[in-house]
């Protein structure tokens, strides 16, 4: 009975949603799937490896492909785009995560206040899970560090590494419901990493190019493909890794503290 009425009520919604999707579909048909749209400016019969005149290219994607290795020193072009060409976006993105983590903490403090805390006595966590989590936590953190330290060489980067570290901490929180890193430490790491990111951006304002977030050391340190290469890029990713790791840990930690 209940089901029926909801279904009737949602018929207009279904119609509207399908209409919307159909409109989008017709529009996206124009954007051919899998076609090399960014390569319209290449000469006809172009073969990979041929020299091209990058001066005349105006499509950003194409120029990044052609020039990224020299300009940023990063072997991973996605990282070059994320941290260097569109680094300003990434700064905003880190800020969004920071705002969300801070906001969740602030708002939960209002919710918790009104709550009478009923602490149930529960069995201690299982020994096997607890010790197992303790055993693998260093390995998970090591892997997270590996991912964000190699962001300019292999798939992954600061965000992914940070999330891996936070998932390790989540495992630890499941295994040890009462223990964990302190609020204060998390908060300090979070803010310091954010300040470090902006500081690295300001380095660009100070050095040769006088431009925020410029990567002036791209070619100076190491060759493409080495751990030490790509100038400030790995440093920024380290800051992002710490920041994302601490933020996600903080998010999990705050939500856990609520008990709901």
């Amino acid at each position, binding site marked *: 009975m209940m089901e029926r009425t909801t279904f009737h009520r949602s018929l207009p919604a279904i119609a509207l949603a399908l209409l919307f999707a159909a409109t989008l579909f017709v529009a996206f048909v124009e954007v051919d799937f899998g076609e090399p749209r960014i390569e319209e400016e290449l000469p006809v019969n172009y073969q990979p490896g041929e020299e091209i005149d990058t001066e005349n290219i105006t499509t950003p994607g194409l120029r990044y492909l052609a020039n990224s290795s020299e300009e940023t020193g990063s072997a991973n072009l996605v990282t070059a785009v994320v941290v260097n060409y569109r680094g300003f976006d990434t700064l905003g993105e880190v800020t969004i995560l920071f705002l969300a983590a801070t906001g969740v903490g602030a708002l939960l403090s209002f919710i918790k206040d009104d709550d009478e805390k009923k602490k149930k006595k529960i069995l201690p966590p*299982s020994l*096997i899970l607890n010790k197992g989590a303790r055993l693998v936590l260093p390995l998970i953190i*090591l892997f997270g560090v*590996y991912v964000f330290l*190699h962001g300019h060489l292999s798939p992954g980067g600061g965000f992914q590494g940070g999330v891996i570290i936070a998932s390790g901490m989540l495992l630890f929180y499941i295994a040890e419901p009462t223990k964990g890193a302190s609020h204060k430490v998390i908060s300090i790491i979070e803010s310091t990493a954010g300040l470090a990111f902006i500081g690295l951006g300001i380095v660009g304002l100070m050095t040769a190019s006088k431009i925020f977030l410029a990567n002036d050391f791209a070619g100076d340190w190491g060759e493409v493909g080495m751990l030490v290469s790509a100038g400030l890029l790995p440093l920024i990713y380290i800051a992002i890794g710490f920041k994302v790791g601490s933020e996600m840990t903080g998010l999990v930690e705050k939500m856990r503290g609520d008990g709901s």
Partner: protein
Amino acid sequence: MARSPLKIVLTVLVLMVAWMMLTLRTDIDGLVQEIIAGALIALALGIFLSGILPDAGEGNPVKRILMFFVFLLIFFKEMILANIDVAFRVLHPKMPIKPGIVEVKPGMKSDMGKMILANSITLTPGTLSMDYIDDSLFIHWISVEDDPEEAMKPLDKAVKEVFP
């Protein structure tokens, strides 16, 4: 959960090996950079995190490391047997199972030993460790035999040699 120097050294070594396995590469320059970075990270993590590692018991480290390989041999043999056992039970038309939860008392004292034992029991024929309650391990057994302690003997002994 004491942070003995030996424990820190071992932790750092294990982490270092894991790092090198992740970053192994052929060119010398790159390898040197990775080794330096890995050493720093492993050192930092080892010093900070060796405190949370489970207690591994006391004993002669060299002997324990050797025994660890013996344990691995036994364990892998049992694991392959376990899979053949599963295959037999699952494919057998009548499904010869007689499940139940039994209780055993493992011989080791260290937390690490208990954890490793429980994990290896899960992967050996017919058994799944459920929980520890006050030093006794509860095991779900797919075909209950008379004396569970007897069946656990070889694994228990091997683990006890490594993590007493």
